[in-house]
C-alpha cells in the first residue's frame, strides 16, 4: 500500500491530494503550516478588505485525505519519513514538496518601527484587516501591488503607488493601454509614480523621485521559493530521489500562478496514480482585474501583426493579433470581458480574419460576453486590409 505525504496545502498540494484520493491508490496525508485546511491565496485580499470571512476562503479536501496542521522541519529521503515541529514523524512511500513561495523582502532600508505589510500568507490578511492607515504607500507594480493599492483606496487612505517600471503591466499591455489604465487608476485618487524605485521605507519614504510621508507601506515585489528543510536540500537534489517530487511555486514549470500550480498538482497526482492526464486547452487564457478593469489575454501563438483600439477615456481596449496567414492567434481585451464561447471557438480554430466578421454575440448575456460591435467591425475591416 502506497503512502503519499504531501507537504504544503496550497493549490499544488491540494490538487495532487485530490487526484491521488480519487484514484484510491493509497493513503494520502496533506500537511500545511499556515492554516489547518487549504484556502484561496488569491482570495486573501478580500479577507484583508473585510469583504469575506475566513470560512469563505477555506477550501474542502476529499474525506479520504488526512489533513495535518503543522510544519515539516526535517525529512529523510533514505528512511522515508518527514518530521513535523514537535517531533511527530510521518512515513511515506512517495513525498511531494509543494511548499510554495514567500514574499520577497524589501531589499532597501526599513526604518525601525516603520510598519511594513505584505500580502502572501493567511496571517497577512488577518493583520491587514485590522489596519486603517490614513496614508498608505505600495511598493511594486504587479498584481498583488495593485490589490494592496485597491485596499488602501477602499479604506479611504491617501494612497501612493511606487512602480519601478515606466508603464503599468508592460509585459501584457501596450504603452497606450498602460497609460489608459494609469489614467483610470489616477482617476480613483491614487498617486501613481511610475519609473520610481524606492530606496528606503520610513518617515520619510525615500524614492528615486523624491520623499513621501505615509503612515504605513505595503510591499509586493515578487516571491522567493520556500526552503525545503534539510541539509543541502535543493530542488536539484530532490530531482535525484525517485520517490520525491517538487511542484508548484517552489519549483515553477512556467508561470507562478494558481492555475499552473493546480495543474501541476493534478498532473503529478494522476501520473503517480497511473492515470492519463487530459490535454490543456489549445491556448492559454489569462485574466486579471485591476480597479474593475478586467485584462483578458488569449494566446495560441505569437502573432506577426496586431490591430488595436484603445479608448483612453474609459480605458477599454481591444487588441487582436494574427499570424502571417491572417489567422487570429492572440486577443488582449482590457475592460471588455472577452468570453463569448463563439469567439473562443473561432479563436481556437485559428479562424481567418473574414470568418470573424460573422462572429455574432449572444443577445441575452451579461455585459462583456458580447464585444462592442463597432469596435469589432472596425478592427476586422482594418485587419482585412
Amino acid at each position: 500500500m502506497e503512502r503519499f505525504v504531501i507537504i504544503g496545502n496550497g493549490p499544488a498540494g491540494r490538487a495532487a491530494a485530490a487526484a491521488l484520493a480519487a484514484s484510491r491508490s493509497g493513503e494520502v496525508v496533506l500537511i500545511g503550516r499556515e492554516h489547518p485546511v487549504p484556502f484561496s491565496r488569491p482570495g486573501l485580499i478580500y479577507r484583508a478588505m473585510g469583504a469575506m470571512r475566513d470560512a469563505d476562503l477555506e477550501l474542502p479536501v476529499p474525506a479520504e485525505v488526512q489533513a495535518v496542521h503543522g510544519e515539516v522541519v526535517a525529512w529523510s529521503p533514505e528512511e522515508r519519513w518527514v518530521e513535523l515541529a514537535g517531533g511527530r514523524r510521518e512515513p511515506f512511500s512517495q513525498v511531494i514538496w509543494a511548499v510554495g513561495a514567500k514574499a520577497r523582502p524589501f531589499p532597501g532600508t526599513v526604518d525601525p518601527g516603520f510598519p511594513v505589510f505584505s500580502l502572501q500568507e493567511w496571517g497577512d490578511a488577518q493583520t491587514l484587516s485590522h489596519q486603517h492607515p490614513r496614508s498608505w504607500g505600495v511598493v511594486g507594480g504587479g498584481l498583488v501591488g495593485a490589490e494592496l493599492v485597491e485596499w488602501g483606496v477602499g479604506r479611504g487612505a491617501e494612497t501612493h503607488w511606487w512602480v519601478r517600471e515606466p508603464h503599468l503591466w508592460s509585459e501584457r499591455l501596450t504603452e497606450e493601454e498602460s497609460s489608459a489604465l494609469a489614467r483610470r487608476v489616477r482617476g480613483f485618487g491614487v498617486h501613481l509614480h511610475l519609473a520610481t524605485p524606492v530606496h528606503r521605507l520610513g518617515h520619510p519614504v525615500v524614492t528615486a523621485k523624491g520623499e513621501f510621508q505615509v503612515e504605513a507601506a505595503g510591499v509586493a515585489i515578487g516571491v522567493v521559493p520556500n526552503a525545503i528543510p534539510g541539509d543541502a536540500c535543493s530542488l536539484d537534489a530532490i530531482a535525484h530521489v525517485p520517490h520525491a517530487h517538487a511542484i508548484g511555486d517552489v519549483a515553477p514549470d512556467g508561470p507562478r500562478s494558481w492555475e499552473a500550480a493546480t495543474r501541476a498538482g493534478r498532473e503529478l497526482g494522476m501520473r503517480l496514480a497511473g492515470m492519463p492526464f487530459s490535454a490543456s486547452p489549445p491556448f492559454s487564457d489569462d485574466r486579471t482585474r485591476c480597479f474593475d478593469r478586467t485584462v483578458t489575454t488569449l494566446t495560441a501563438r505569437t502573432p506577426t501583426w496586431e490591430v488595436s483600439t484603445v479608448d483612453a477615456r474609459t480605458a477599454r481596449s481591444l487588441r487582436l493579433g494574427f499570424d502571417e496567414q491572417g489567422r487570429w492567434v492572440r486577443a488582449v481585451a482590457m475592460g471588455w470581458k472577452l468570453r463569448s464561447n463563439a469567439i473562443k471557438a473561432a479563436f481556437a480554430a485559428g479562424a481567418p480574419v473574414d470568418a470573424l466578421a460573422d462572429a455574432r454575440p449572444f443577445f441575452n448575456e451579461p455585459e462583456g460576453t458580447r464585444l462592442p460591435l463597432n469596435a469589432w467591425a472596425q478592427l476586422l475591416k482594418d485587419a482585412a486590409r
Partner: protein
Amino acid sequence: MIQILAVLLALAACAWNVIRNPGLAGEVAWLAAWSLAAAAFAWKEARRLPGFAHRPQVRRWQKVGRWALAAALTGAYSVLYWWPEGVEPLLPLVDDLSTAVRGAPADRWWLYGVAYTGLVLNSGAIVAVRYRHDAYQRRRTAVVAMAQLVFAFTVPAILQGLDVEHAALHRDWKLFWPLDHSFFEPYRLDALRAGGTIGRFYLISGVLLFAVVAPVATYWWGKRWYCSWICGCGGLAETTGDAFRTLSTSTPKSWKWERWLIYPILGWISVATVAVVGAYIAGVESIGPLSVYAVFTRPYGFVVGALFSGVIGVGFYPLLGNRVWCRFGCPLAAYMGIIQRVKSRFRVSTQAGGCISCGACTLHCEMGIDVRAYAERGEDVRRASCVGCGVCAEVCPRDVIRLESTSEGAVWRLNAKD
C-alpha cells in the same frame, strides 16, 4: 452622516402624515423624502469603488442587529396579516393617494403596496449604482423595479379606479398560479366568470402564463426570465434584499432542506388546487366529509401564503439571506426549476482554468449554490434553484463565469475536464 439625516427627515415626514394627516401633498412629501434618503445612499455608493471587495458586506450585518431587524420585520408582517387594526393608524400615510389614484379609501393592502413598491424603487436605484459597471445588472434592476411599479402597482390601481365594478379583478397581472395560490379558489373563479371580457382575459391569460408561457420561457432563458427580472418577490429580493445576499448559506445541508421543502409545497398546492377546482366543477363544498375550504384552501393560505412567503420570506432576510422564500418555499420557483433542470438552454457556464477558488461567487449566490465547486471543476451550474441574477459572473475577479442561453449542441466548451 447625510444618510442618517435623510432617513431621520423621511421618518419625520411619515410621523407628520400620521399625526397631522395633511392630505395628498403631505403624502407625496413623505414619499419624496424617502427617495431623497435613497439618493443619499446612492451617492455614498457612487463614491465607492465599484465591485464587491470594496464593500464590507459581511461585517455590516452583525448578529445582534440582524436578529433585531428580523424581529422587526417578522413583527411588521404579522401585524399586517393578522391584526388589521394595528395598521389602521398608519393609513393616513396613503389615504389621499388611494382616493386620487383608484377612487377608494386606503386599506392595509394599499399601504403595503405603496411601501413595497417604494422600497423596490428606492433600493433599486442604490443597487443600480452599486453594480454600475455591469450592464446586465443595470438592465435587470431597472426591469424588475419597473415590473413592480407598472404591473404590480400602477396599472391595477388605475384600472381599479376606472373599472369600479370589476375592481377586485384588477391585480398584479404577471402574478400567476401557483405563486398566486388563490387563483382557482371559488370566489376568484366566480368573479372571473362574472367579469365579462376582462374576466375571461384574466382567466385565460392566467392559465396560459402557467401552462404555456412559463415552460416555454424557462426552456428558452431559464427561470431568470421571471425570478430575477419580473417577479415581485424577486424584485424585493434583488433590490432591498441585495445587502443580505451573502447571508444565504451554501452548505449541502441547506440544499437538502431546500429540496425537502420546496417540492412538497408544490405538491401540496397542486393537490389542493385539483381538489378545489374539482369541487367547484362538481358544485360541492366538501369532498366526502372533508370541507374543501377547511382542509385544502385555508391551511395552505395560512402556512405558505402568509407565514412562509411573507413573515418568514421577508422577515428572515437578515438571518438566511434575501431568497428564503424563493429558495425554500415558492411553488412557482419549484415548477420552473424542474423545467430548468430537466430541459432548458440556460446554464451558468464556468471555465476551470481561470478559477482561483476565491469563493466570491459562492459567497454572493443568493440561492446558496456553491458556484465555486462547479467553477473549480469547470462544470456547468445546472441547478433547479438558480435564478440567473448574474451576480456570480459580476463578482468573479477572473471572469470565468457566464450566463448562457444557447442551444447546447452549438456551444463549444473550453472546460478542461479531467
